[in-house]
């Protein structure tokens, strides 16, 4: 799972409807996979990102991002910054680990890059 997807993910247990984002990563094994740089896609995705959550997640994998998304967001962000974002959002894959919901503490394991989101009967 790429970090862009993690930034969109929240807990879906039945009665867990608030404070259920971002899922806290732990014991992660990450891998970097190069992929084509697509500045237009990044610009389109920027408004959808939860910046604070991304900063927090990036810190967990030892990448420091500016705490505030640079002003004048979409059009004239410099290439250098977009390339950093590209590396974090689209080239960083979580291979193994776990994600914990900050609200209900449900743990979703990640194996071979695939999060297991199956709920048991009482949670669904």
């Amino acid at each position, binding site marked *: *799972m*790429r970090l*862009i*997807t993690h930034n*969109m*993910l*929240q*807990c*879906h247990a*039945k009665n867990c409807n608030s404070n*259920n*984002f971002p899922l806290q990563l732990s014991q992660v094994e990450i891998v970097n996979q190069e*992929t084509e740089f*697509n500045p*237009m*896609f990044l610009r*389109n*995705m920027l408004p*959808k990102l*939860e910046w604070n959550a991304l900063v927090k997640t990036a810190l967990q994998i030892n990448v420091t991002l500016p705490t505030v998304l640079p002003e004048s967001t979409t059009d004239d962000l410099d290439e250098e910054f977009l390339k950093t974002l590209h590396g974090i959002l*689209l080239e960083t894959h979580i291979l193994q680990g776990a994600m914990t919901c900050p609200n209900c503490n449900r743990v979703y394991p990640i194996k*071979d*890059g*695939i*999060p*297991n*989101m*199956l*709920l048991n*009967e009482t949670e*669904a």
Partner: protein
Amino acid sequence: MSRPEHKAPPEIFYNDDEARKYTSNSRIQSIQAEMALRALELLNLPENETCFLLDIGCGSGLSGEILDEENHIWVGLDISPSMLQVALDREVEGDLFLQDVGQGIGFRPGTFDGAISISALQWLCNADQQSHNPKSRLNRFFSTLYASLRRGARAIFQFYPENDDQCELIMSVAMRCGFEGGLVVDYPNSKKAKKYYLCLFAGQIPGRQKQQIPQALGEDES
């Protein structure tokens, strides 16, 4: 012809053997690719733009490969671990999730620019466990899907409805969850080529013309 969804739940039916057989069957490959392309066309995305898409019941990634070829970034959900393993082996680009969409999906509001689903929706109408109620599972699925889509985004489901009642149930639940849209039946007069696409709109795009149900293909042919 017996329907696979009557034999066993999808995660059991598509075991390692079936998942591999299914994926390596060249006839299935070309039909799935064709339907994925048609679904993508019905999504009506802006031209030459890379979009963030959801593939519901992505299986071994046959439809995802089409999304890759068209340069989109995608997330795929499937309940069969064997199918997902084949997708991993085939090195598709999308992010894969082991998920029962009848339990709802967990993406933040407005995440996706569109969703496609190829040959999966009919599975959701089964009651594989005593606790399964197809109507409430459909409701949970459509309501969480609606929330995860950008306003005005579309969700296109190619599926094999079992009968009119099933079609009606699916449509009525989707509409109750806020979707607009309807059914597109391609080649309705051909026994072989006839295909059902449920075209759902997550509302309208502000300031744009109202979305209309797309034109079906081959309506005059027989």
